[in-house]
């Protein structure tokens, strides 16, 4: 049944395109129900498969000539991310209720993107995964280029070229793996158990990892992220930061690390102080954490603050992956979920609640408007989101970052100190943004000459949905941990565990 998340999204896209008449309401409501149906299916699937085992959903021959199958399957990691996609999709539609221009096209592209994302998380054939991964690229371009703001065409093109260049590396790795494994199958399970020669893994791993990590915003390939997020319309920013970046991180884990675990082994020599790809990427991740947070601290554009904070938070995901121990890996997956929710919320506040009303994102201009008094709901939501973002206990970010830090402490003690510094800077920039945007000094004295439309019902609903998600998973982490841990312990990741113990 889980496969219907994909089909229903694509069908919804078609339905929206051919929705009768000029009425925008029909398109919106259709899109909302499509996304709700996807979320519903995801929730039912999580309830049914609470043990996180790998279950095949569909498996039929696709291109028998090359041994390629149409194979959808889900384990706990996929389920977690499918759930995230469902939540983010519904929230995104609620926050784009005010789109007035080319409404049908907007929601059609949006749903195609969602369908492709579901497809990536559920694919268990490597070519199929790649196909969905690439399908996701084109809607992103049009969503940003048509409905975006600041330098939208530039940002859209940059984002698409980065993703496509990354996926070119991935494709090279996929084809190479396919040929080495005898050109018979691209089934992920079969490949995970195939003993690829260590020398092959040594170069295939970085190729594929970097290819996916581009989309996960790994420093120094992150530059598409802030510009893309800032230019995108609210719903697209929410999806980009919330879900699409996870595609990259998921690919790193599911493809690069699961198939080529020995690529993380020691090189046997040291170059520039590095002894293995594990160390190289861990250092890049830490740089991403600190760099993203530091740059966020000095941004004037409100959306860029959030954009760079995404880079910083995705650094935690990559760092968690590179710890190679169980707690670090589960922290990384948890952070994928957590950041997906929290980033969505932050972008919703900035893009929809604030920007659509004030038409400025300049923090200095915002500080002259007493936003805290005019739209208190936005202020409260942003405060909550910031707390979740900096990882206060009680929110999902706490569970995730704590695990990542513990995992890092076990693998690279000194790096966890630097990452901890990143968290401190994170607190600083969240504080600064909150202060400047909502409780500016100038605003206290200025007379409120602005009258903003009140927060609408869909906005409230979307905000509640995301806040509840982050608090529930923060207070009751077992909900997801029970899915994630068994998957990480499964036979698929055996190579990774063996590598870590070596």
């Amino acid at each position: 049944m889980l496969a219907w998340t994909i089909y229903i999204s694509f069908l919804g896209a078609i339905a929206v395109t051919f929705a009768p008449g000029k009425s925008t309401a029909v398109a919106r409501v259709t899109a909302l129900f499509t996304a709700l149906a996807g979320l519903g299916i995801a929730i039912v699937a999580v309830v049914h498969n609470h043990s996180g085992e790998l279950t095949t959903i569909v498996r039929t021959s696709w291109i028998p000539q090359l041994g390629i199958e149409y194979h959808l399957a889900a384990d706990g990691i996929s389920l977690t991310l499918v759930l995230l996609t469902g939540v983010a999709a519904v929230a995104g539609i609620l926050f784009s209720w005010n789109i007035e221009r080319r409404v049908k096209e907007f929601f059609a592209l949006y749903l195609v993107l969602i369908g492709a994302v579901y497809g990536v998380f559920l694919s268990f054939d490597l070519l199929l995964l790649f196909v969905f991964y690439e399908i996701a690229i084109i809607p992103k371009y049009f969503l940003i280029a048509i409905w975006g703001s600041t330098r939208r065409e530039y940002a859209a093109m940059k984002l698409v070229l980065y993703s496509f260049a990354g996926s070119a590396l991935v494709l090279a790795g996929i084809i190479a793996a396919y040929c080495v494994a005898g050109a018979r199958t691209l089934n992920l399970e079969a490949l995970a158990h195939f003993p690829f020669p260590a020398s092959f893994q040594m170069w295939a791993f970085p190729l594929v990892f970097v290819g996916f990590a581009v989309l996960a915003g790994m420093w120094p390939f992150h530059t598409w992220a802030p510009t893309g997020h800032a230019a995108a319309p609210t719903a697209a920013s929410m999806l980009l930061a919330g879900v699409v970046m996870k595609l990259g991180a998921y690919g790193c884990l599911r493809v690069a690390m699961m198939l080529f675990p020995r690529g993380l082994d020691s090189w046997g020599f040291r170059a520039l102080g590095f002894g293995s790809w594990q160390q190289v990427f861990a250092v890049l991740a830490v740089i991403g954490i600190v760099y993203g947070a530091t740059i966020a601290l000095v941004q004037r554009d409100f959306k860029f603050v959030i954009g760079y904070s995404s880079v910083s938070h995705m650094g935690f995901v990559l760092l968690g992956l590179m710890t190679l121990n169980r707690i670090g890996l589960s922290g990384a997956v948890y952070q994928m979920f957590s950041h997906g929710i929290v980033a969505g919320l932050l972008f919703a506040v900035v893009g929809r609640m604030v920007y659509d009303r004030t038409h400025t994102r300049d923090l200095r201009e915002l500080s002259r408007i007493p936003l805290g008094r005019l739209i208190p709901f936005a202020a409260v939501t942003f405060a909550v989101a910031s707390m979740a973002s900096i990882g206060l206990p009680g929110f999902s970010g706490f569970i995730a970052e704590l695990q990542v830090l513990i995992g890092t402490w076990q693998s690279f003690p000194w790096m966890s100190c630097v990452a901890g510094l990143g968290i401190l800077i994170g607190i600083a920039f969240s504080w600064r943004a909150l202060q400047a945007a909502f409780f500016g000094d100038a605003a206290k004295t200025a007379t409120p000459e602005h009258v903003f439309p009140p927060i609408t019902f869909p906005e409230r609903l979307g905000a509640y949905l995301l806040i509840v998600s982050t608090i529930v998973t923060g207070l009751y982490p077992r909900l997801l941990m029970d899915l994630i841990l068994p998957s990480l312990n499964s036979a698929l990741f055996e190579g990774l565990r063996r590598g870590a113990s070596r």
Partner: protein
Amino acid sequence: MTGSSYLELLRLTAPEIIVALAGLFVLVLDLTFLRQATLAIRFRSAVIAACTGCVLALVGLEKVSPQGALPSGMLVANPLTQLIQIALLLLAILVLLFGASADFTQNVGEYCSLVLFATTAMMLLVSTQNLLVIFITIEFLSLSLYVLTGFDKNSARSAEAALKYFLFGGMSAGILLFGMSLLYGISGSIALKPIAAAVNTSPGDPMLTLAIVMMLAGFGFKVAAAPFHMWAPEVYQGAPTSSAALVASSSKVASFFALFLLFYLALMGAAGNAGWGNYSSGWTLLIAAVAAVSMLWGNLAAIAQTSVRRLLAYSAIGHAGYMLVALVAHSPQSLAALVYYVLTYALATLGAFGVLSALETERVDSIADFSGLGKRAPGLSFCLLVFLLSLAGIPPLAGFFGKFYVFVSALNLPQHFALLWLVLLALVMSAVSLYYYLKVLKQVYVSEPKAETSAIAVPLTTSVAVWATAALVVVLGCFPDMLLNRIAAALMIAFR
């Protein structure tokens, strides 16, 4: 030749004969009965007659499926050649349909019959394994295409393109013939099989090297690979749209297939090695270099283009580079991959030209002219999106799978990663190519239409043909097996 082998000749060439006769018939029809009719009616009747001829030949190929060979490889008919011929006929029908509502010429009969003659030449070209017949059919094809390129007598561009095409083409034909004559001198034969035997005994012969270089230059011109590509942008831009469509699609299919067969069947002994670090002299190395240059130059130069047709021409040069990768790999699997690639590529390019021909009355040429097309002609724009994304290699469209298959075939050799350098270059360049395709699509969907423009009326035949092409591109991308199975089965029989 005995009497029975003339019968054999007739039997094997029946489809070609039908097409050629249809060409003559169209000519006569237009010059006699349709003399007084209006241009539109003449075009329609001629196209209907020509398409009927193609369909008859198609039915003949499918139902009778003649198989066999004439002495010294003059004509070899097997399921593989048959598959290509079917594809050529389908492409010809689509080209004719795109031209059905054209108004660039008064000489309707001549135009349609030349399209059919070119198709006849291509059908013969793909089903021969004999140097002389290869040369004659290439010349037959080229002459038809030169005239088709210059068919728009009111346009100076068209004349210029034809002249340029003719001069370059004549020169490269001479070079090709020179190479072939050297090969004949070495082996004493014009049939590919005996040549292969002679090449195997003396692969290092300097005369052979010269012959290979010459023939590669000649064919490089036909397939528009850099550095033999100079004619392509002019022809794509200057020729009447449907002529350019023919040059861009079916002539590529036929030339690539013939090129592969020539090198694969006759020159295997001098292949050499293009694998990284294991270079040894031979034509694979040469072709690898041509492929690399084509990919680089085609894709990078395309970025700078402002005319959509020139952009398509440079992208064609880039695509020729990808297809040559399959030739460098020269395995049966890579032939299958090449056939799949070139057929789906031809469909996508043809479709793009079909869209251009539907916009002919709008006189669009530069990318800026496409602004707001998404509003003015939503159906057409969607098809253009499909074609360009297929060319860029975005799944689930046919172009993606073609690339995947070619690259798999290039890496799936005894030494796995010998050609990885070429594949990586191709992948990086295909990332570059997305940029310029998106540049066009950006105008179509993102930019607002210029003031006082209205919806565009698309002729019915064109729109049917464009939609059919788009559907084929999507279906072949989602279910590549449909074509792949046929190719594999045909290959089994052809290279038994």
